[in-house]
């Protein structure tokens, strides 16, 4: 167990270092921040001087070394754009993104699981076909189109929901939440729907497939043979057996949701990490961009490791060839 854990942690560290390096070297090429930081009629002298001071003229390995040493201590430097520590900026934006992602996960489970169960149990009813059709549409419409259409209908035509922002937020111990105010909750609706459409479909299809598999197993047949009611069999036995993969996938998808939030946050002007990242890209705010990628990768690595550990604990077969096996996504 310990050896397995250590191995996973080492792998995680290696992944992080690779990501850090890719992120770092990529950002060397995205543009020159100096033009954004100086007035347009700045002199040549001022420009080269600023480049010098930002360390943009140091040799690359040196810059990378600096970056990693500081990053390990949680110091990603000062944002060129906001002139505040990047770690503060990310800490401020984290709640906005996490709340949206969390709400999207809940929504996708609450809607996706019942839809999946229903379509598995009543495979040929018209409602199942409708759900199937809807779910296909859900994964076929690009997120940005969904978001724009929602704004058009619910903000511009009907004027029910705000088209941007988070509404009013309440600060609780350094965590700003929009879940406690009416305007905050209203602001959450459209971004969460946009973000979760894909997930709902994914969960629904997963539950349906797993249910169908499980319903075919001998275990369920025996349960039925024992004279248990359909209800007990379907929900007590079959559904319970499908939940493990659902939870795994949901866990792994959190990372994907954080990344997809880039598009949703751009469309809805949601003041989260994705928006921070996109703004940083257009300003060439290198410290923010690198920090975002490293942070997101860290979240992935942590979630993956946790999922792996869970599997390790739950499924004894894995312990035999732990090194080789995959997470099963």
């Amino acid at each position: 167990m310990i050896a397995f854990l250590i191995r996973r942690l080492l792998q995680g560290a290696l992944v992080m270092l690779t990501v850090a390096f890719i992120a770092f070297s990529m950002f060397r090429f995205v543009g020159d921040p100096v033009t954004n930081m100086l007035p347009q009629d700045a002199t040549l002298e001022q420009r080269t001087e600023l480049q010098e001071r930002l360390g943009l003229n140091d040799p690359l390995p040196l810059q990378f070394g600096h970056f990693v040493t500081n990053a390990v201590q949680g110091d990603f430097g000062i944002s060129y754009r906001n002139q505040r520590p990047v770690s503060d900026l990310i800490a401020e934006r984290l709640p906005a993104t996490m709340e949206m992602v969390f709400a999207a996960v809940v929504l996708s489970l609450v809607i996706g699981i019942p839809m999946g169960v229903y379509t598995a149990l009543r495979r040929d009813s018209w409602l199942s076909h409708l759900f199937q059709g809807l779910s296909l549409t859900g994964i076929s419409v690009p997120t940005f189109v969904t978001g724009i259409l929602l704004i058009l209908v619910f903000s511009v035509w009907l004027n029910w929901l705000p088209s941007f922002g988070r509404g009013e937020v309440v600060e609780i111990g350094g965590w700003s939440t929009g879940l406690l105010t009416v305007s905050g909750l209203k602001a959450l609706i459209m971004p969460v729907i946009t973000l979760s459409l894909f997930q709902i479909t994914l969960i629904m299809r997963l539950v349906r497939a797993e249910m169908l598999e499980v319903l075919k197993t001998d275990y369920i047949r025996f349960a039925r043979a024992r004279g248990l009611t359909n209800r007990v069999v379907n929900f007590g036995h079959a559904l319970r057996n499908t939940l493990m993969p659902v939870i795994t996938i949901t866990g792994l998808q959190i990372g994907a949701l954080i990344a997809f939030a880039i598009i949703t946050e751009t469309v809805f002007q949601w003041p989260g990490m994705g928006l921070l990242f996109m703004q940083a890209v257009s300003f060439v705010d290198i410290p923010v961009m690198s920090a975002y990628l490293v942070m997101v990768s860290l979240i992935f690595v942590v979630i993956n490791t946790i999922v792996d550990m869970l599997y390790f604990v739950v499924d004894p077969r894995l312990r035999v060839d732990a090194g080789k096996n995959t997470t099963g996504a």
Partner: protein
Amino acid sequence: MKPIEKTLAMTLLATCVATGAAQAKTITWADTSDVYSMDPHGQAISPTLAFLHHIYEPLVRYNKELEIEPALATGWEAVEPDRWRFTLREGVTFHDGSAFTAEDVVASLERATHPDSPIRGNLPAVAKVEKVDEYTVDIHLNGNYPLLLNDLTNVYVLDKTWMDEHGALNPVDPSKGEQSYATTHTNGTGPFVLDTRRPDAETVLTVNEQWWDEAEHNLTRIEFTPIASDATRVSALLSGQIDMMLSVPLQDISRLENASGFQILETPGLRTIMLALNQSPETLADSGEGGNPLRDLGVRKALYQAINMELIRDKLMRGKSRNAALPVAPAVPGYDAELDERFPYDPEAARQLLAEAGYPDGFSIGLDCPNDRYVRDEEICQAIAAMWARIGVETRVNARNASNHWQEALNGGSDVWMFGWATLPMLDSFSILSQVLTSPHDKYGAWNPGGYENPEVDELVKRISVAQDEQERLAMIGEAFALTKAEVPLIPLHQQPLIWAANDGIQLPQTPDNKVRLWYATVD
């Protein structure tokens, strides 16, 4: 409690109290990007400085007619050519109640011109600042310099004691990994007080009841929200979430006009959009074969005359732009209406010129454009590419985001590239003459990677920089513009329009510098 939480808690309290007040006059407005920092010496970005002008004030300011008028200084005179004496306003207090004195001016100007200061370039001529008495300061210059007042409009005054208390006497230096207290906190003399700030979400100001000037506005609260997406910003205005917005996309103007209850404010902007022609490389990056046709005056003129600016104005700019032959707008000192006449659109003449220059079959060329910077930037380039194609110049449009675009262009890697120049913050023709049309040397020519060089212009610029007499100075500027116009080192296109929109209940002045001055605004 962290300071941010404390202010937030206080805001909540304040909001509860404020909503109780009967005469709440709030204005909520949006622009494309956030105010970057609360530190007025932290960056040199125009929209941020314009916003901070509500909280902090300079010695002299622009009024709504864009004329310089007294602000924290009531009078000034050049005691010697390189020493200016400023008389300060008495009875002004900072938001925290402390009095405004000469000490504050000295400390603020020293902070702004500190070697680490990012806005040092905004005060290029200031050598030293000296307190004479409690309400008089002397500003020593490097030499003769006619534009000191213009420069001072962008440099705001902070309280010395306050800066001292919070270790903010030196400017923030991003390269040293520090942040300044002043980045997140304010203490100015301006008409409004910072209430709360959530970066990229909302910045709220309330009224400074102790303001020294007579308030023309009737506001009690200002809420600023950045909304980057054009479509979202317009829909926020239409749905009443905001009262006013800058940067109205051209295609949405008619929609706002048709919706009842909204007004469109528009004025020709200061920013002139131009194409720079790269004469420096032996061969062009995108042309493939040898030679640099842009070195030929005939070719440059052919490219100029092949562009149908009327069509671009009518179709792409929906009639809102002002076609330009000079690289500065009419509002900029040094503008000369007589020179501002474009070479006519004439594809036949253009083809002729190409043939005479030895390119009867044209050539191929790259046209580099930003795609997120100017009004319809990318579309304009595409339209120009189509027009050039018709005279046989095969044009490849390379559109990138502005950061990449500048990097490529300023390193000399672009054949022809688009850029805009508003002459801000200086607001004078000298700005573009010295940085774009002068050959790169000393502190000049930072935006002239194309290697345009005319010794006469260089000499004129040198003389303009120290000219004493305003008439003489303007005459020399006109001379320099006439020289450069004939040589076509760049192709001026147009001044892009400034378009704001607001609901009908708001009255506020709009100036060509695209700066919002809400101390002139009233709300019904």
